[in-house]
């Protein structure tokens, strides 16, 4: 009886603390990011652990329905083209509740990826378990991770660049600068940036 009580108490503590760590906090620079196993648009499950040769990842929480995310689609594709072969592939994760945003459901994700010719995985955060751990609040929201012995370490959080309206008028390519620095073994010049985005639909 005592043991059961203890177990229940321990369980309560675990649940309570995990609730605290997932609500509104998320990762900071230097934290080790959790791996995931999420369904891709081709029906296969994708994890970071599948990428044996990667040096790191450009994890982007994005979706079909947010105009800011749409404005960045081509630039996300360009990031993957530029960095996948260098060891930093893009992994896109769609975090929205598809009951609230049917335009972001798996069928719609497949259609969008096909229309735009995405060469990166576009995963569904089914059950919305992953984005709160990362602390993503909006789409698009980028996390650049570097593989370390401890696991994928967060090196950059924020925006893709400093001009969502016009790719040709960008003056700061935050994500590229971060990945270039990591590839050179240097410190990321700007580790956190902010941009307007669509709140993740719960």
């Amino acid at each position: 009886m005592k043991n059961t009580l203890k177990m229940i108490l321990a369980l309560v503590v675990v649940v309570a603390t995990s609730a605290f760590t997932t609500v509104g906090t998320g990762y900071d620079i230097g934290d080790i990011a959790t791996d995931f196993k999420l369904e891709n648009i081709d029906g296969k499950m994708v994890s970071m652990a599948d990428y044996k040769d990667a040096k790191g990842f450009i994890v982007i929480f994005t979706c079909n329905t947010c105009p800011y995310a749409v404005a960045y689609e081509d630039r996300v594709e360009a990031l993957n083209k530029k960095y996948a072969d260098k060891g930093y592939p893009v992994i896109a994760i769609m975090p929205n509740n598809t009951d609230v945003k049917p335009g972001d459901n798996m069928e719609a994700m497949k259609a969008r990826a096909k229309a735009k010719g995405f060469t990166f995985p576009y995963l569904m955060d089914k059950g919305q378990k992953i984005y709160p751990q990362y602390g993503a609040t909006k789409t698009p929201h980028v996390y650049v991770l570097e593989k370390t012995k401890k696991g994928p370490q967060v090196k950059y959080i924020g925006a893709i660049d400093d001009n969502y309206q016009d790719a040709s008028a960008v003056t700061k390519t935050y994500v590229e600068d971060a990945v270039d620095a990591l590839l050179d073994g240097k410190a990321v010049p700007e580790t956190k940036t902010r941009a307007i985005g669509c709140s993740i639909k719960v």
Partner: protein
Amino acid sequence: MKYAVLIISLVLFCFKSEIKETKTSQAFVTELSSEDLKVLNFNELESYLSKKDANKTYVVNFWATWCAPCVKELPYFEQLNANYSGKNVEVILVSLDFPKQIETKLKPFLKTKGLKSEVLVLNDVDSNTWIPKVNKDWSGAIPATLIYNKNKKAFYERSFDYKELETELQQFIK
């Protein structure tokens, strides 16, 4: 050299805003009737985020026509404006609609909804610079709301219903 550039741009900026001010007073009447929207960069918007009217409380909501939860809560802000405008409360709706959609989307939207609160458009791509100036903790997700008066300031990165909004406002006008 850097300072010289800074000083010159500052002087130019002051000069420019002075011209604008004199123009505004002349254009005031026509502006109202033609339903023109004020499109501002962040420097121009900043005065709305710390107005000095000692007796007033300002409720500034960041929204866009494409943001579903924002559109959903707009009526509550309108309701708040209607119920509290006689009590020294002013609601300001700052739209983050894309400039190219002002004519095609935002203006038709405003016309259909007939919003009574003041609507401004913020057009400033360098969000990494201006978001922390609104609030240091804002991640950039909308809807987001700022409530302030001379004594107090609070920022909310969340959605509201009317009751929640009114409860927050009450803490400012007690």
